[in-house]
């Protein structure tokens, strides 16, 4: 199995049906005719128009605004790199950056690992498999706002369920809302809860593709379950893992709903994330769009760098045929 060489988390098309003559795209534009190009663009254009209008144009505006002093109303002026200078010298920015990284490191591996374990356990015959699988998915479809409200309810220091349960086993007054670390834990827990299902689905799909014959052959050769997992299953999982890591990093960098509603970035700035901070600056009472946009641009660049680095590593490993 080769890994496609496109600059995207693309995966190899499954070789179902007839073998493909060549994966189109490898060769770039075959340029059969301008007419085919036209058809191609006609198909892509509705989506491109939407993306350009609602994502690229705003992104470019945000970049322009990051060099301005601009707010809701009143005059705006060019201020060069003042916003960026302020950003680098501001404790709160570094704090939110650290929080975002901590949050990412706490959520991404956890969600993926739990998803993998569940997928492996559910890959073979288990009683009530469909029911179990469905239950694990369900949090995926719950709105971030609802997740945050449930989180508020569970972790509330006054009337919360969790402290009621903890009190029953002799732990009193866990300070979920007033201790920075615990508040971060509560946000991470609710986030992981919503993501485990997705990781599991992706892994289940990948595991289904591991041909039974290989497992059976390995069994005949006397390989135990653990060995079989390590030598047969794991090599099949590098593409989905890569995909999940990239997606989860993007989601974690852009975490908003849960934090915004559940902790509001508090206590202090202990759970303030880059995106909530950018939003507060731009849409909060200070109405500082220039600065809010600056933070937004920084988030975009950071995500880009992290993803490109991952991609780079992935391709290097694919070339050396290594397995993580």
């Amino acid at each position, binding site marked *: 199995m080769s890994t496609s060489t*496109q600059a*995207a988390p*693309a*995966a190899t098309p*499954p070789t179902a*049906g*007839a073998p493909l*003559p060549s994966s*189109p*795209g490898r060769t*770039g534009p075959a*340029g059969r005719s301008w007419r*085919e*190009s036209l*058809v191609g663009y006609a198909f892509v254009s*509705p*989506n491109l128009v*939407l*993306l350009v*209008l609602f*994502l690229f144009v*705003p*992104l470019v505006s945000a970049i322009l*605004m990051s060099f301005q002093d601009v707010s809701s109303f009143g005059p705006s002026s060019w201020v060069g790199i003042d916003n960026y200078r302020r950003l680098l010298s501001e404790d709160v920015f570094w704090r939110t950056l650290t929080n975002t990284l901590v949050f990412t490191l706490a959520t991404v591996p956890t969600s993926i690992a739990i998803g993998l374990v569940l997928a492996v356990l559910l890959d073979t015959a*288990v*009683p009530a498999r469909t029911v179990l699988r*469905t*239950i694990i*998915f*369900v949090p995926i479809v*719950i*709105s971030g*706002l*609802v997740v945050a409200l*449930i989180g*508020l*309810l*569970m972790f*509330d220091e006054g009337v*919360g*369920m969790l402290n*009621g349960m903890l009190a029953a086993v002799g732990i009193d007054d866990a300070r979920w809302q007033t201790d920075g670390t615990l508040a971060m834990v509560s946000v991470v827990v609710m986030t992981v*809860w919503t993501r*485990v299902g997705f990781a599991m689905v*992706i892994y289940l*799909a990948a595991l*289904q*593709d591991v041909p039974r014959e290989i497992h059976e052959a390995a069994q005949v050769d006397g390989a135990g*379950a653990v060995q079989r997992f390590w030598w047969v299953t794991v090599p099949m999982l590098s593409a989905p893992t890569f995909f999940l890591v990239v997606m989860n990093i*993007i989601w974690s960098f852009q975490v908003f*709903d849960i934090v915004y*509603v559940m902790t509001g970035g508090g206590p202090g700035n202990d759970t303030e994330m880059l*995106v909530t901070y*950018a*939003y507060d600056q*731009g*849409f909060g009472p200070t109405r500082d769009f220039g600065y809010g946009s600056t933070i*937004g641009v920084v988030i*975009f660049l950071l995500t*880009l760098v992290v993803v490109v680095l991952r991609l780079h590593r992935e391709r290097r490993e694919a070339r050396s045929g290594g397995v993580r």
Partner: protein
Amino acid sequence: MSRWVRFLVVAVVCAVMLFPLYCMLVVAFTPRDALFDSGAQLWPDAFTTENFTRLFDRFPVGTWFLNSVMVAGITTALSVTVNLLAGYALAKLRFLGRDAVFVLIISTMMIPAQAIMFPQFRTVIDLGLFGTFWAVILPSAATAFGIFLARQFLLAIPDELIEAATMDGAGQVRIFLRIVLPLCKPLIAVLVLLAFMAQWNDFLWPLIALKDPALYTLPVSLRFLQGQYDADYGGLMAAALITCLPLVLLFVLLQRYFVQGLARTGIK
């Protein structure tokens, strides 16, 4: 590990996964006073539907529900259509700059929506859409994730099928409609669910882009209720339950196709 041991392990995880939903359900039916007097109980002494009656008496929940259905429905139709078209072109058609277009599209996934909301908002104003449902629908239909999935799925469709049809003189549109689409059912299930879910659950952007409370969607009204119901978890959870129940049901019904579809997008 025997299957029963595996079952037990997964069942425990499931119990943990269900716990937050259970909390929501119980509190939605807990009398308001009981919550204040003794905190949220895992099994309240009394059950009541007063949280729901209070909610429906005071707020146009029905209107909000219909708004949600409509906005999410239209967004889904639009978004799935454009994703399928683009995914097909990127997977199967050869044209100048195709890979560049694909990279461009994928890179939009890294744009933090809330951080560029202000310029996005200006765009919506400039288009004259502010305060209408279109202000919510169109930006939501601009997503890259769906294109990515569609392209992955369509890559797996054998080229021979398309080649053969081309030999027969069919145009691309015809091929797409007659040959490709019928093979896409699992993909469509995934795209529909994801698009519907994303729009149904979004609250911040609709809150900013819709100014008239009569046009609110459910999650927006939930945020609204949060302000009105300070710490009245009973009322909030009742509303939260109404917000997520339709999706949970939809999902449980469609989950088989969802899993199949995702499995066949070939992220492996």
